């Protein structure tokens, strides 16, 4: 059993294994997303308060959830890489960041679009979750900028790991402050999930979307981690053999 994990951490084995697993994760993920999209758009009944606009929940909630999950993945693997000095863990952190940033952006955009018919404005500072998402986006930018600014791979890995961990500790505090801050205003109509009660026909597509996007994230992550591993191992034998199999001497 342990040999399995040991081999997993070995870069050439990981590289190969990740490639094999990729379709097994991506395809079910896409299938769930397809079902969730169809059901969310056409099967789920109309919401009492928000009419058809509530359907945006089926993309907004998964993207917001993904933005958080990507950050957690980033922070945890960064921590593992820092403490146990596993290069693979650092590779996972580096791979998760751009995906997380995109989904944070998506969460903000869908949240803003959803808000337009609900609040009448494209942005509502009074919604604490939207504001927290914005700050999360800046955390991602900082992480990516720091990585980009450091040339040495190992230094970049470990510096950004410290940043990711500090950021992770701050996220609940940030969320708390923003909630307190928005509660001081007359409460803007918060974008509430599905209205007073969420029925099963509304819930199932949402669950499907959340699971589907999780799998999608896992698949894209796997692909990116493979590339990160390749980049970090570029000088090793196994990479050379793989890319230039005919290593014949002149």
């Amino acid at each position, binding site marked *: 059993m342990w040999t399995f994990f040991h081999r997993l951490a070995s870069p050439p084995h990981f590289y190969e294994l990740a490639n094999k697993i990729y379709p097994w994760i991506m395809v079910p993920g896409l299938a769930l997303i397809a079902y969730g999209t169809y059901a969310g758009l056409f099967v789920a009944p109309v919401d009492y308060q928000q009419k058809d606009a509530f*359907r*945006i929940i089926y*993309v907004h909630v998964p993207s917001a959830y993904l933005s958080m999950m990507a950050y957690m993945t980033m922070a945890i693997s960064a921590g593992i890489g820092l403490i146990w000095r596993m290069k693979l863990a650092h590779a996972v952190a580096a791979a998760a960041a751009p*995906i997380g940033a995109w989904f944070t952006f998506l969460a903000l955009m869908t949240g803003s679009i959803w808000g337009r*018919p609900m609040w009448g404005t494209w942005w509502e500072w009074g919604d604490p979750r939207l504001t927290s998402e914005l700050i999360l986006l800046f955390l991602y930018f900082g992480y990516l900028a720091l990585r980009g600014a450091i040339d040495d791979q190992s230094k970049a890995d470990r510096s950004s790991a410290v940043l990711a961990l500090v950021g992770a500790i701050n996220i609940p505090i940030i969320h708390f402050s923003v909630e307190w801050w928005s509660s001081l205003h007359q409460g803007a109509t918060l974008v509430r999930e599905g209205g007073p009660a969420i029925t099963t026909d509304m819930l199932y597509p949402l669950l499907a979307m959340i699971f589907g996007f999780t799998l*999608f994230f896992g698949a*894209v992550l796997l692909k*990116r981690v493979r590339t990160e591993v390749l980049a970090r191992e570029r000088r090793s034998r196994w990479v050379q053999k793989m*890319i230039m199999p005919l290593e014949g001497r002149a």
Partner: protein
Amino acid sequence: MEALAMGDYGVYVWSSFGLTLAVMIVTVWQARNHQNKIYREIEQRLKAMEEVK
């Protein structure tokens, strides 16, 4: 057509879903691009080393 209208909220709903699809495509495309770029870099470096020999 009723589906398209989405009770007057069509623009909002469809643009949200469209954006989501776009982001999904971008992330996969970006991952693939990144992979190709690194692969080519390594390949070129190895080729250059071969020629030096």
